[in-house]
């Protein structure tokens, strides 16, 4: 097989690699976009909560209750602040749960995309190897001869 045949096989391999690289780039872009959108959504939820006066930090959740308990221990004579009503506490816990779920989903999606990228990179290497093998096979296989005699 001549250099032209090797070039053809390499060109075919390069086309495959280009296609895979395009897919990889697309997936990377999707990972970035998904992360940004998730981030914005998460903070939008927090913003809406704050704007509607339901700041979890100011609510009677664990974080708010702990300093109050410490203060009470330091000054037993001082009256302990009254506990928040049960409906406010449950609303705050729901927001915390939702945030945790969003973060978990985001992390899961990123992991999945990362796995896909790794898989594509492995496929890319495999395609490269295949193109090399095809080029070697084409080189080894010679076309059958024809004969030119007196016409």
């Amino acid at each position, binding site marked *: *097989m*001549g250099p*032209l*045949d090797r070039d*053809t096989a390499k060109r075919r391999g390069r086309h495959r690699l280009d296609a895979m690289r395009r897919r990889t780039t697309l997936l990377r872009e999707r990972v970035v976009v998904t992360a940004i959108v998730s981030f914005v959504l998460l903070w939008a939820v927090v913003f809406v909560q704050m704007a509607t006066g339901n700041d979890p930090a100011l609510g009677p959740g664990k974080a708010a209750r702990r300093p109050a308990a410490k203060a009470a221990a330091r000054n037993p004579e001082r009256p302990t602040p009254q506990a928040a009503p049960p409906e406010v506490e449950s609303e705050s816990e729901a927001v915390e749960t939702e945030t945790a779920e969003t973060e978990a989903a985001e992390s899961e999606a990123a992991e999945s995309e990362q796995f896909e990228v790794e898989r594509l990179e492995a496929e890319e290497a495999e395609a490269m190897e295949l193109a090399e093998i095809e080029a070697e096979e*084409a080189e080894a296989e*010679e*076309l*059958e*001869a*024809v*004969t*030119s*005699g*007196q*016409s």
Partner: protein
Amino acid sequence: MSEARRTFECFGGVVTIAVLGPASMEPGRAAASAEAKLLAAHRQLSRFLPGSELSRLNRDPRARVPASPLLVELASAAREAGELTAGLVDATLLREIEAAGYRDSMQGRPEADQAAQPAASIPAAPRSAGAWAEISVDRQAWTIERPPGIGIDSGGIAKGLLADEAGAALAGFPAYAVDCCGDVRIGGTAGRRRPVLIEDPFGGEPIHTFQMGDGGVATSGITRRSWKGAGGAPAHHLLDPATGEPAFTGVVQATALAPSAFLADVHAKWALLSGPELGPSRLPHGGVLVLADGSVETVAARAPIETAA
């Protein structure tokens, strides 16, 4: 990927078509289609078939004759061969070659004893007024114009022309070869090189092997299609245009490489008719000459083969 191959009798010899391609491209079907077209072209252009279009043209008393595109291409090729070789390759010597004894396809007839060649070797020369120069074609009206009585001989140029035509139909395949009785067209999208063996004019092992990816190879010689003429003198089908007699130039076989099988055929005949001295200069893309003493001269290419895309 597999190569479909078909071998069949046509043009008074053996034709081979090889097409390499994936099964999805149906190379076998393409080879069969090319075979059918070549057989149809043979029926159309053979001078040995009285009913062929070429025979009707050669008998036609009109100066301008309507013709099929294939016959128009043949007539145009006859003129082109004359122009390229300054009249040395003359496809209008039909009457002369018939007079010399070549009236049928000669299939199955024994060859003449080539050892009995004339001692003198003289390069051929063109006729002062070659009839080829009076051929003109009209590709709008599909007509051929020539003085009535001129006979066009398809034997000299049609095989190469038809190998090119068949090759053009197979150009989309990764590799193909069309061998019309020794006039070979090779090509394909993969640009893969194929060995081309050059036959020994005296029946021995191949004298040379070329590797070709795209282009034509043709061989002309005087040891086949030869016969005993008047008085038992050896005769063959390559005529000296100046005398109208078989040419003995000192070259018994010439092989030419060229961008097309048609051009290779013309260059091979031109080299043979020019003799050992000028012969190599008629092979710009390379070739092989076998001289009367049996020596083999390989001619290196002076110009690369550039085929039409």
